[in-house]
């Protein structure tokens, strides 16, 4: 197991878990969501291939009310 930080909260993850797998575990809706890992945007098309490593900082963002 590895530990990744999802929106600053530590979470266990499988070794070589992909972004797509992490989002599935978190039950994140696919629509209207964007992901950055260690400050770099990971595009939707790359979610299934992008593998996480221990200590990765993952930002999972979605629509919020705002002017």
């Amino acid at each position, binding site marked *: 197991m590895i530990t990744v930080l999802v929106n600053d909260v530590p979470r266990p993850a499988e070794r070589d878990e992909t972004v797509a797998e992490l989002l599935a575990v978190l039950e994140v809706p696919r629509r*209207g*969501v964007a992901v950055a890992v260690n400050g770099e945007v990971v595009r939707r098309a790359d979610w299934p291939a992008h593998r996480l490593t221990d200590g990765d900082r993952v*930002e999972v*963002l979605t629509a*919020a009310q705002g*002017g």
Partner: protein
Amino acid sequence: MDDRFDLGGVAFGSRLILGTGGASSLQSLEQALLAGGAELVTVALRRIDPDAPAGLLEVLERCGVRLLPNTAGCYTAADAVRTAHLARDAFETDWIKLEVIGDDRTLLPDAVELLRAAERLVGDGFTVLPYTTDDPVLARRLADLGCAAVMPAGAPIGSGLGVSNPHHIRLIREAVRCPVILDAGIGTASDAALAMELGCDAVLLASAVTRAADPVAMATAMRHAVIAGRLAAQAGRIPLRHHALASTKPEGLASW
């Protein structure tokens, strides 16, 4: 009357752009958006919150509006550019309301970072709508970079102070060819009408509606104010005079 508003290659029927920030509930937001008749609506990008009420995107889809993601809360060009790219991935749109804030008390833009971010995003293929100050020179620089519009603040975000420097808004309208959208500071309907009378092509507001005691009534007022201001701007107003000019002819007055 056919008076379409062309922005970023899209023709809009409404010249009122609404923000979603500040609404007390999604139901209240949906009613206000429908009452205002907006076709372009801003959204922010924030960390996913399992406890937050879901459904904002569904509400906006039901209202049939086009999304305008913003970079609210960004203080550097780098943060704003990264946020814009995330928004493009999340919402499948190249449109971005570019905000690069320079000061947390006034929330006014940081001109240097704003220009840097605008240049990068135009280069990356975005339709960039920058929130800017009421400085005509900065507005021209943004337009020259290829921004699809310039969006000067009438007054600080959420202040409700209205259009604090009407002269500069008029100068901005003269300085650029792209659309000018009055963004931020609107408090009530007369502010929106004034912005349109000054020559703005559209008005963007959020708090004035979402934080009004009756958001639906205020959204309705804003819809009418923008239409009224636009019509007045095109109607050729009478010149200001220091003395009266009778509208009733003096000839034929009865003699007693």
